[in-house]
């Protein structure tokens, strides 16, 4: 591994300051702002984890709700018998295993199959869970009673988001990240220089799936009663795609730019006009495709590039 550059040290320092500032939030407010911050932090972790895989590969994964629900259920089933940290580990393992299976079935063939497969995956897992629950248990849902407050959940999500960021940063520096860069640019080239493209993609998908499952596990105590339709809510998958693409997936922090405004907008829409959420999501998808295909961070970088070029041109004119 290469030495750490000064830029990276600065990035890490800024990150640490931001995390410390974010961690102080529950000390200021425990009501509405904390509640919406939990949502923002949740989607920050989910979108960044999603972009770990979908950013470099350009594969649109709609399996988020499946991993999330799996994590939620790991906690729901085990909360009375096992300690919470162990349940988080189990959720991570379950997410990784599911991602590995899905990846092995679909990541060897072209991207469309992957989208279609993940499109229905949450629905499939939900049906199977509902069916086993009605067969094996009498009640539809599971109760999750813990001593966790909203602040605890918020801090855990913050820690998770930080962990996703550090992992993403470590992957970018590693052989896997380098391989993904080549695969993202041209998969044929990658295969010819001896990269096992399927293995790299599956591995990355497993990491991403594990993080998403842990996010679901952390959120479980907040629901206190878990039912399949809430845990495997397909809306989560779509919101994650919109927010991540809105922010842009080329940079690790890109999704964050989309998460913060969109979570706030969705919160307002779903409380004021609950019947119109689909329309807003539809318009968001269309806006992204037609106007901001590289996300907001892409726009910023484009603007910065143009500005830099103009400065260079002006500078050249002066010297001429």
């Amino acid at each position, binding site marked *: 591994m290469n030495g750490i550059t000064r830029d990276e040290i600065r990035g890490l320092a800024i990150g640490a300051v931001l995390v410390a500032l974010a961690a102080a939030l529950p000390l200021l407010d425990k009501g509405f702002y904390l509640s919406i911050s939990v949502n923002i932090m949740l989607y920050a972790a989910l979108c960044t984890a999603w972009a770990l895989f979908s950013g470099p590969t350009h594969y649109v994964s709609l399996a988020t709700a499946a991993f999330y629900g799996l994590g939620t259920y790991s906690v729901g089933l085990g909360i009375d018998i096992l300690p919470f940290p162990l349940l988080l580990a189990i959720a991570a393992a379950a997410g990784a295993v599911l991602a590995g299976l899905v990846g092995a079935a679909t990541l060897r063939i072209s991207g469309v199959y992957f989208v279609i497969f993940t*499109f229905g995956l949450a629905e499939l897992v939900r*049906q199977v869970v509902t*069916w086993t629950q009605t067969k094996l248990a009498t009640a539809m849902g599971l109760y999750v009673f813990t001593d966790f407050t909203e602040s605890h959940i918020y801090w855990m999500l913050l820690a998770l988001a930080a962990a996703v960021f550090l992992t993403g940063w470590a992957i970018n520096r590693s052989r896997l990240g380098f391989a993904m860069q080549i695969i993202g640019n041209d998969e044929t080239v990658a295969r010819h220089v001896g990269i096992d493209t399927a293995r790299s993609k599956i591995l990355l998908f497993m990491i991403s799936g594990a993080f998403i499952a842990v996010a679901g596990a952390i959120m479980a105590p907040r629901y206190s009663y878990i039912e399949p339709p809430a845990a495997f809510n397909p809306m989560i998958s779509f919101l994650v795609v919109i927010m991540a693409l809105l922010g842009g997936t080329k940079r690790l922090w890109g999704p964050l730019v989309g998460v913060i405004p969109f979570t706030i907008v969705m919160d307002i829409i779903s409380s004021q006009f609950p019947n119109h959420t689909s329309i807003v999501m539809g*318009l968001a998808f*269309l806006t992204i*495709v037609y106007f901001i295909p590289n996300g907001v961070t892409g726009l910023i970088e484009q603007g910065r590039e143009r500005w830099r070029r103009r400065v260079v041109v002006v500078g050249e004119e002066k010297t001429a």
Partner: protein
Amino acid sequence: MNILVTGILLSGTYALIALGLTMQYGVARIMNLGNGETLVAACFVAFWLYTGLAINPLIGLVIIAPAAFVINWGIYAVALRPLVNRAKNRGQLEVDSILATFGLLFLLQGLMIVGFGGEYHSYTFLAERFEIFGNSYGLNRVVAFAAAVLIFVALWLFLYRTRQGTALRAVAVDPDAANLVAIDVARTAAFAFALGGALTACGGALLSTFYTFNASMGVVFTMKALIIVIMGGVGDVRGAVLAALILGVSETLVASLIDPGLTLAATYTLFILVLLFRPQGIFGRAPT
């Protein structure tokens, strides 16, 4: 036997919906995830024509199919052609069209939820008994199946007996080569997309005669159509019909023998098997 016939009757409608999608994806190269919404919209129009104006759904097809054709042509021209022109390669078009049609999916679904609410709708049409091999089935299902078969035969004749149909098949096989033999690929693609929309709408109108529907069920039908199209081999009409039969029968089998709550799981199991063993589809040849 009972299960088999019910499954086959159901698969007629499935085949129409899947044929619509296979036109759109196989020929126009647009993976239209809003396909199910076209279907639901057609259900609502058929419902409205029948309950409001007392127009028989089968006659309603004469209104619904051309309307869907024109609307889908419009959607292609306004929303999707810019993406086709912009895309540098096939992969980019696929990602863009998936995201754009997701947008259409949610937009249409949202509009229908606002317009019709989330409740289930249905109407009574030909709810009489019809006997096949000593068992009785709903006459509406039998009529819907017969209509689907008729539409399929018409489509077959069109694809294999007319110049325009031949052009469509040529574009499905190789757009570049089709261009070289003086086929207007852009126009053919728009035509295929519109035709696909019309077929799906017919499927929807027929489905509404025996099925309870609501504004948000489109996604499930898109899923089924996608799985049928992939099982049959993209752009392959015979494959789509055969795959629709397999799906219809196996769904009915699982629903009546195991549990109605597991139909999607059954569909998915089939899908996984196809992906693992024959990703090129039933009639497709393995890539060399």
